[in-house]
Each structure stands twice: as C-alpha cells, then as structure tokens.
C-alpha cells in the first residue's frame, strides 16, 4: 500500500535529481516552512530565457524534498515564459499521489521558492 501510493515520492526522496550546490548561479532563492522546519534552496543557470541548469538543496520531510526533485526535472530546459503559466495544480499532479491538506504546504514549498526566484517577491503568498 504505502509503497504504491508513494511510489514516485519515494523514488525521488531516495534518489533526488539535480541535488546539490551550483557555483555562480544566475538566480537563487531559499525558503522554509518554520512550522515543520522544511528548507529548500533552488539555484538556476539561465541562457536566452531558458533554464539551462537547476539545482536544489535542503532538508525536511520526504514530500518536501521529493517535490523539489520532481520540480527540477520538470524545469530543466524549459523556457521561463512557459513556466510562468505552470500552475501549482500541475506541479501537484506530477507528484503522483493525492495529498491531504496538511501535507500541501510541504509539497508546495519548492514550487513557491521557484516562483519567487524566477518571478520575484510579489509571488510571495500567492
């Protein structure tokens, strides 16, 4: 049961993609969820409006970390213009499981960090 429901999450939690630190990123942003202590930092290398490379680092629960890993896979190689219309519902869909409302915060941390990094502070709390 658990292994089926969490299949994608567990895969990314145990083998995170694009994990680590980047030297000389073009943009970076770090965010956290003070209530549960989850932290995510995202770094980007951009070229001609395209995300050439992206890395994340941080700590926290499986949902928050796997969610970041899944997001980086999606972002790599995408045009920033394209990402602008990428909705949080679509990101949640990529996680491959239904989340209870209390876990939503964990799942959306990386998405919010990405929005603020790429589109500015006005994204905070959106």
């Amino acid at each position, binding site marked *: *049961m*658990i*292994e089926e*429901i*969490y299949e994608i999450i*567990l895969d990314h*939690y*145990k083998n995170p993609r694009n994990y680590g630190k980047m030297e000389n990123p073009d943009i970076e942003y770090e965010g956290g969820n003070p*209530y*549960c*202590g*989850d932290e995510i930092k995202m770094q980007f290398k951009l070229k001609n409006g395209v995300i050439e490379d992206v890395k994340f680092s941080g700590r*926290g*629960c*499986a*949902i928050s970390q796997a969610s970041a890993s899944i997001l980086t896979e999606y972002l790599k190689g995408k045009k920033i213009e394209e990402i602008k219309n990428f909705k949080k519902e679509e990101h949640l869909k990529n996680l491959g499981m239904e989340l*209870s409302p*209390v*876990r939503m915060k*964990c799942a959306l941390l990386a998405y919010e960090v990405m929005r603020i990094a790429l589109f500015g502070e006005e994204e905070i709390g959106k």
Partner: protein
Amino acid sequence: MEIKEKIFDVYKIRNDFPCLKRKIRGKDLIYFDNAATTQRPKQVIEAIKEFYENYNANVHRGVHTLSYEASVKYEEAHQKVAEFIGAKGMEEIIFTRNASEALNLVAYSIGIHELEEGDEIITTLMEHHSNIVPWQMLRKVKKIKLHYVNVLKNGTLDLEHLEKLLNKKTKIVAFTLASNFLGTITPAKEIIKIIRNKSDAIIVCDGAQAVPHIKVNVKEIDCDFLAVSGHKMLGPTGTGFLYGKKHLLEKMEPFLYGGDMIFEVTTEGATWNELPWKFEAGTPNIAGGIGLSAAIDYLNEIGMENIENHEKELLEYALRRMREIEDIEIYGHKEQDALGLISFNIKGVHPHDIAGICDEEGIAIRSGHHCTQPLMRHFCIENSARASFYIYNTKEEIDVFIEVLKKIKKYFSK
C-alpha cells in the same frame, strides 16, 4: 486487584466516546494524540447539551430560576475540581481557559505586583513553552533573573543543580509534574522539600500532563499553585483551572478586571469579590465548567488508580513492541515513573512523514517540536513523532500502529 480489573473494561469505556467511532479514509480511527487533547465521553457532551437546553443563563447575577440553577452547577464544578486534587474547597479553584492561562495568572498577579529587580525565578529545561514564556516576560518587564534547571541524560531533572540555584532571592520556582515530551514524572514531593529548605519561593506546578493521568494531591505534594488543562482530561476545550493556596490568593492582586470579580465599584475605584470569583472576570465559560465537572465524575467513576495501571500496561507493551523496530530512537527514560507517552524518531525518516503515513492509516499522532524547544535543543533534536495514550486505547491499536511503523521503516528510511 481482581475487583479493579472487573471495573476497568476498556471496550465498555470506548463505547462512551462517539468520536472513536470515526473512520479515517475508511479505517478505524486510532487516537494517539492524547497529550495534545483527549476525546470527550458522551456524558460530558450531554452535560453541556443539558445546560444549553434546560438551564442556560448567566451565573451570579439574576434572581431567576435559571440563573440560580446555572450558578449552583457552576459552583459545584469548582467544588468537584477541588476534591479531585485534594484542595480545601472551591475558593482555591479558579477556572481558566487552559493551563497556559493559569500560569499567566500567577505570572501577572504575583510577578508584576510583587517582584522587584534582582529577584530570581527558577524554571526547568523540561517545561512546555507555557511554563517558560510567561517567566521570560517577567524577566523583560521586571528585570528579574531567570534560571533553568538542567535535565540529565536519563530524562530526569538535575536536582543537585536545582539546589545550587536556590537562594534567598528565589521568589518563584515553576516546574512540571510530568514532561509532555519525555513522559518523565518528576518527584514533586522531593523537589518541593528541597525548595522549601533553601528558600521562601512560591512553588508553581504545571499539572497539564500529570493530573489527567495520575493521582495528584496538592496537600500531599505541598505546592502553592497548580495549573491544569481541562481538555486534556476529557473536559471541553477552553477549560482549565488554577489551584492556589487560599492565603496566597487572598493577598494577590487580580489578573483580569471587570464584571463579576468586584464587590463594589465607585467612580474612585473598586473592591474585590470573594474567592475564587475575584479571579474570574466577566461571564465565564459556564458550559465548559459544567462539562469539566462531568469529566471529573467520569474519571472518578473509573478511578485514577485504574487509569494509571491501564496506561502503564499500554506503555510497557508499546515500548516492548517499538523496540522490535530497528533504528528507532525513543526519548526519555522509561525505567522510572513515566506517563503513557512515547516520543520517538526512526532513523532516516522525517517525523512529519511518520505522522503523515500514520494518518493515512487512520492513526493520529503528533509530530513537531511539542512546544518544548529548549528541551529538544538540549537533547540536540529538532523534532520528533509522539504517540500518547489514554483510558480508551488498547493493545490491539498498538499492534496496528507497530505494523504501520514497520512499513514506514521499510519504505522510507534511506
């Protein structure tokens, strides 16, 4: 011994709790978050309903029948609480919203009015934030010194350290009767003897975790104040109380000012009502108090000794089964007196994932810092999961819990 076992029938008890029949995602609810708040039996829910349906009125005001009936029941609730903890009478029991408010009452009424710069307060590293932050407020406002008694590796208070901290300038010592993170039951009688030997400090006990689970008698332990939460002992949310020795309450300034707490008001000033009403300004939580009274009836009916034994059995069983799981870390000593609660982590698994998966399986446990950040920092932990038991929990529920933990360990640990 045999008779007691006959009286305590956990399956019969479970029938009294409507919420325990809840299904979570199709699974039976297993409620292991009792240290946060308990469920309420139908007797408590009925008592509140009866008040609202039959004699709903304000207390201590009208001459009419409903007001009289409500006043009698509300006062009776104070009396019942007094008997439950061995106080002299209802004049020593002040109803509050929770234990936090009870501790704030002491901090404000005594702290603000009676402390002077250079005075000292001692609390401990084992405390819930509610028994730390009000004293920090006094440190800021009154420029007093605040000391913390150390916690030893085995999860007990360092009483030698306490002895060293005590002196004639110590005005208040505040400590918990039981830890909400470690489960440790502190040796209150012994601690209070040490304090009285070396100072004239006022002694404040946090009974939020202990009073619902073990017999606490204020005369026996000889504390000056005791703060308790009603909602952690089957009572309604928004209920709690402060016990205080009568002679101390009499000379204390009020905490909140307004209606019902006065004897007479002129444009020049006011005189205070008699105890305990001097400390209960405004229309109180009447329904809550009546509900708490029903909760105490319920606990008395079962017997605190039976409750203690039942929880001890659950604790021993849960510990034995949890230790079957590799890489599980359990916090606090469990060899000495302890409550039926277990804080733990599974290596490589975040406690939020433990609680999240448990929830998928219908099991309610807590995860986080448990409002004891200084204690957790002392043990170098950021957060943990916690399962806490009460009268209606069973070994079968623990079995289900253990199976889920084993699955979590299998699939989640890196």
